[in-house]
């Protein structure tokens, strides 16, 4: 069985390592082959960019050589896929190489597209790349007071960022002695402060204590840089001195160009994780690039990858898949003042978040390091 994994991020790496371990004898005997094609020789721990924006981490701490994280049996090439020829069961890379497969795994992730909202790219800062996180940090350092407006586009990766960035920037500004000169103004697309209802209730209580203003049902329409204001689809206008965005996202351009899914989101079966439509029986989709109605988060990518690897191994060994993905997601929530909490849920089971505490923050900080063991499949 020839397995080709496209994307060396969280989902692709966890899938490939997990599968390689399950199929070690088949790989040695030449009965199975795993090839990974990625766009970069680096593996980046993106959650760390939040801490880069706050000056608590530097970008180099968040990078490893992808090859160093992979099981030795995996053939790894930095040669991004340009063309998906699903009808002929092969992909073509930038260098022109053709890779044939019996099973294709697409895990190309997602990317921020602030340019989708007029004026947003030119007038806002965010933490969705190392470079942008450093820019946000510079702006926070240079800030002398006024209104910090947090604005949220849809869809976006990591659903906790709107709250986390607000709470942690509040700490940062307070520590700079500027809290009396600063107003935090938080906006959110639906009628409460977060998609998870109990998280929203808790967050609004915290906002009230901290003096953070909130406006709900606020969907970005345009940013007027000259006037320093943001207008919403709902007809509201809010002024800012510093505009911090959670930009809208799309899947990779290559997904759109190959017509695999509108805006780069690939229609995916929520249980089997196979691509829906023609040729889907040979294609699995993992991580941010699915169109599933669940959080675009590393934990989602992780749990999906484990299920998919178990299924792929079972297919090789017994000719049948092992189990379904149950929609499991686990998200840490940084709550400011060095406290954190988490939310865990599935398609069936709603989350029951607990009050934030210092131990959960310490665990998140430890996880930022443990991630490198986790992505290798060692925990």
């Amino acid at each position, binding site marked *: 069985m020839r397995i080709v994994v496209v994307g060396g991020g969280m989902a692709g790496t966890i899938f490939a390592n997990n599968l390689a371990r399950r199929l070690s004898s088949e790989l040695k005997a030449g009965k199975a082959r795993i090839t990974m094609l990625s766009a970069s020789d680096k593996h980046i721990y993106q959650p760390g960019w939040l801490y880069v924006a706050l000056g608590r981490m530097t970008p180099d701490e968040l990078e490893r050589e992808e090859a160093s994280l992979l099981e030795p049996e995996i053939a790894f090439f930095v040669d991004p896929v340009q063309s998906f020829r699903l009808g002929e069961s092969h992909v073509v890379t930038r260098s022109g190489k053709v890779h044939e497969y019996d099973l294709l795994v697409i895990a190309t992730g997602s990317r921020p597209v602030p340019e*989708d909202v007029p004026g947003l790219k030119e007038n806002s800062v965010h933490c969705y790349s190392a470079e942008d996180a450093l820019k946000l940090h510079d702006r926070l350092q240079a800030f002398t007071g006024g209104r910090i407006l947090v604005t949220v586009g*849809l*869809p976006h990766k990591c*659903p906790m960022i709107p709250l986390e960035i607000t709470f942690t920037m509040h700490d940062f500004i307070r520590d700079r002695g500027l809290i009396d000169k600063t107003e935090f103004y938080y906006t959110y*697309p*639906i*009628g409460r402060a977060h*998609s*998870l*209802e109990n998280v929203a209730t808790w967050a609004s209580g915290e906002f009230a204590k901290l003096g953070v203003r909130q406006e709900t*049902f606020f*969907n970005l329409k345009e940013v007027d840089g000259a006037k320093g204001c943001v207008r919403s*689809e*709902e*007809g509201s206008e809010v002024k800012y001195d510093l505009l911090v965005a959670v930009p*809208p996202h799309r899947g990779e351009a290559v997904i759109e160009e190959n017509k695999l899914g*509108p*805006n780069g989101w690939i229609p995916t079966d*929520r249980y089997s994780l196979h691509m829906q439509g023609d040729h889907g029986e040979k294609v699995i989709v993992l991580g941010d690039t699915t169109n599933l*109605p*669940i*959080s675009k988060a590393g934990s989602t990518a992780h749990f999906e990858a484990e299920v998919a690897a178990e299924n792929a191994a079972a297919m090789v060994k017994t000719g049948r898949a092992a189990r379904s993905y149950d*929609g499991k*997601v686990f*998200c840490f929530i940084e709550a400011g003042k060095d406290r954190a909490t988490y*939310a865990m*849920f*599935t*398609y*069936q089971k*709603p*989350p029951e978040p607990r009050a934030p505490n210092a131990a959960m923050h310490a665990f998140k900080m430890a996880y930022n390091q443990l991630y490198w063991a986790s992505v290798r499949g060692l925990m």
Partner: protein
Amino acid sequence: MIGHRVVDARGSFCPGPLMELIAAMKQVAVGDTLELLSSDEGSARDVPEWVQKVGHVMERSERDDARVWHLFVRKAK
């Protein structure tokens, strides 16, 4: 041609059905209808509230035997 697209947000706690709808709305043309599937009780309330605020059209809503809401929203602008 007037399009019709289904947004299957059953079992979605985060981002949740309304955020799925708002995101999908940007991908369709004015005049198209989206059919949102939601197993969340709150959708029958918060979807029409948002649709009205933003100025789209709530065509109809119904609940099937599996207690799934089908909310039909037409993009008006």
